[in-house]
């Protein structure tokens, strides 16, 4: 089903806002992770790891899920489809994998926050390189998805090819 132009613009706006918001939030996490690893003030180090869990719950997870949802709705409501073009499939896979890893990683955020909240834990124990690695990889993945969305490299799947030519036939290829 192809959405009318007003609905397409609304969904596209929501998708761009949530996806770019997610990208921006990941950049903030790269900064937080860097602060946690390099700051000399123990309170700042603990604060960085304490802030990650609620920030991820309140910002990263909702934006990731909304980006995924609006992306799927957007593709199904336009001629691009979800499985017709390779760039859409790649972008979907990147978003699915990044969201899945984020959801699994929430436990690690919780563990790091508990260690940071423990006043008896030494600062060397509080510091953790894992968020820097994960946030950097997430940033690369989301930048790649953004490039795909903007450049839309050519290439139809076999399914997309068949649907397009069936739709050229009068009465054929109803989704």
């Amino acid at each position: 089903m192809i959405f009318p132009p007003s609905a397409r613009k609304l969904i596209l706006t929501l998708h761009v806002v949530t996806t770019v918001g997610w990208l921006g939030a990941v950049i903030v996490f790269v900064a937080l992770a860097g602060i946690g690893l390099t700051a000399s003030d123990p309170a700042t180090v603990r604060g960085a790891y304490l802030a990650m869990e609620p920030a991820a719950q309140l910002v990263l997870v909702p934006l990731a899920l909304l980006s995924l949802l609006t992306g799927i709705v957007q593709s199904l409501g336009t001629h691009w489809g979800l499985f017709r073009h390779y760039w859409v499939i790649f972008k979907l896979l990147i978003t699915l994998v990044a969201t899945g890893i984020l959801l699994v990683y929430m436990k690690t955020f919780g563990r790091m926050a508990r260690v940071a909240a423990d006043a008896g834990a030494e600062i060397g124990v509080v510091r953790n390189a894992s968020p820097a690695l994960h946030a950097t990889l997430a940033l690369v993945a989301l930048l790649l998805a953004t490039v795909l969305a903007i450049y839309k490299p050519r290439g139809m799947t076999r399914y997309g090819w068949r649907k397009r030519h069936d739709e050229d036939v009068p009465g054929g290829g109803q989704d």
Partner: protein
Amino acid sequence: MADRPEYPGAPRWVKVAAAIAMVLILILLLLLLLRDPDGHGPGRHLSLEPGVEVGAALRTG
């Protein structure tokens, strides 16, 4: 009714990207197998356990 033209196949960028993705997945799986002899999940070594100092973890690998 006109015949459907033959499918031209996936473009080169798709094949290259798929190959890179496969290599990355393979490397990740190898890392998981090599670093995880006890059969724990990826969270065990992709994140440090509480009480493991960063420097100590890097030294011991």
